[in-house]
């Protein structure tokens, strides 16, 4: 049973379409990155998964069940939200009561997010990073097999971000299925097994990080560059060669590097560098999303 299945999921607010015909499957045990610019529909989708927002159309199944039954599912949506007059520990105590979880889980999750030392202090006195960690602790209370985290590193300093990513990777390695949303490419590429890219409410690409990045060809530094370019255009076709920053980006199987090198040398070109060129993820992202932020 797949932990998350969305079919043709749609949410409209009047005329505004927040999510449209979204098909999404998260497989058991994977860390899935839900990537998109601000306002693309990520949070609305996650809210529909959790039953907070009712879809206008389509279907959602968590562990094969319609939203409403959240046993085995932990989540933090759009930043942490707790009771400021309670301590971190009391906040978790309250949530453990709602969840029907034994109180001893509280110490376990506080340790997991490294918040035990400050757990008796009022939530109102916490830094943004501590609030975020308490949010993750709350999401882990049920020892979930499916963890849904919406922008979990928002507001964290670099060390906090690294800790959070390490925690998510640990959870993934321990067999939990994790669905995280993010607008940070680097983050997703570090943590996730697979990535879905959403823009304007639609899933526009779904792939593994490696496939998304892809080995797209060769980067060549050669002189004279114009001569090299025209020679390669002759050999590989016009569309395969572009001159970028005084070098050549060539769309060709990187395994042909030796052959290309030999051919260039024979043509009287001096080659100073020749290496496989990975697609820049940011470039991929901007191409796919049309380079826009829907945050407005």
């Amino acid at each position: 049973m797949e932990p998350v299945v969305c079919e043709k999921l749609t949410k409209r607010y009047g005329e505004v379409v927040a999510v449209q015909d979204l098909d999404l499957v998260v497989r058991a045990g994977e860390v899935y990155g839900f990537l998109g610019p601000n306002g693309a529909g990520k949070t609305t989708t996650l809210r529909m998964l959790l039953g907070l927002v009712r879809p206008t159309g389509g279907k959602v199944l968590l562990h094969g069940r319609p939203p409403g039954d959240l046993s085995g599912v932990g989540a933090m949506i759009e930043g942490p939200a707790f009771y400021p007059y309670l301590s971190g520990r009391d906040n978790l105590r309250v949530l453990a009561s709602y969840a029907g979880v034994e109180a001893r889980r509280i110490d376990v999750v506080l340790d997991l997010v490294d918040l035990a030392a400050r757990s008796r202090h009022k939530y109102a006195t916490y830094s943004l990073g501590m609030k975020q960690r308490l949010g993750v602790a709350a999401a882990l209370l049920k020892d979930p097999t499916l963890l849904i985290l919406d922008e979990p590193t928002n507001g964290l300093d670099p060390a906090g971000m690294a800790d959070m990513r390490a925690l998510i990777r640990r959870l993934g390695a321990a067999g939990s299925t994790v669905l995280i949303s993010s607008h940070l490419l680097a983050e997703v590429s570090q943590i996730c097994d697979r990535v879905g890219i959403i823009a304007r409410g639609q899933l526009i690409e779904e792939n593994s990080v490696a496939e998304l990045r892809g080995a797209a060809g060769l980067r060549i530094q050669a002189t004279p560059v114009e001569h090299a370019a025209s020679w390669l255009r002759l050999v590989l076709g016009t569309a395969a060669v572009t001159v970028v920053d005084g070098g050549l980006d060539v769309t060709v199987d990187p395994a042909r590097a030796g052959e290309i090198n030999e051919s260039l040398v024979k043509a009287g070109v001096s080659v100073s560098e020749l290496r496989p060129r990975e697609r820049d993820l940011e470039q991929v992202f901007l191409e796919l999303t049309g380079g826009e932020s829907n945050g407005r």
Partner: protein
Amino acid sequence: MVGSFRAELVKLTKRPAVWLLLGIALALGALFAYVIPYLGATTGTAGPTADRGLAAVLPASIVGNTLAGYPVFLGALLVVLGVLFVGGEYGWGAWKTVLTQGPSRGAVLAGKLSVLTLAALGFVLAIFLMGTVASLLIAAAEDASMTFPSAFDILRGIGAGWLIATMWTMFGAVLGILLRGVALAVGLGLVWMLVVQNLISELAAPLLPWVDSAQRGLPGPGAGSLVSSLGAPVGTPGVEAVLSGGPATVVVAAYLVGFVALGAVVLRRRDIL
């Protein structure tokens, strides 16, 4: 449901604002139901309520005297309690945190409203205890009778107070849900309690016969009539005898049920944003 009740109980009892409201209710109740009438009866000059005299603040009058505050000023504090307890979830964005732990909206609301009902009882008992202590102190100081009403009258009074107090907290709760927050809900709730109710009963009802009949179906006059039937002195703001005890109880109970039903329906249907 049991888990939600436990969670809500922790949230209520650990919230400083709740104790502040109770403290204010006790202080104002003691001041306006006992201290000022007592000083008026013993040292004051002729005023609108001077004729009540010492009898109004002695133990024999405890039921009516402590109930007199519920139609308006204690009621207003209870509306604030209801709004804070439910509207706060929107203000802090905590609904999503609570609901993603798994309980249904119905279970959370049931837990919340049960705890509010219990809080209303605690509130009524605390006010009654304050009245007991104050009236005994006055009776001792004036060497007057320390006889309390019968146990039945006392229980009936506490029951009526509880019913009205719960109705007002539910009014606050439903305002919190409808307006998804605290500020506007408290503001509009208090405008209704302190301004609109008065305008209707003091200004509109004497002028227009149909307003006079319609106001019998409103919660404030219902509460005012109920406490009046149990001995609350007419002339206290909000205390009026537009209905007899039985119909007044029905009106107050109907609003209580109506507020709960409306809150439940709206919370169930709306998206949690």
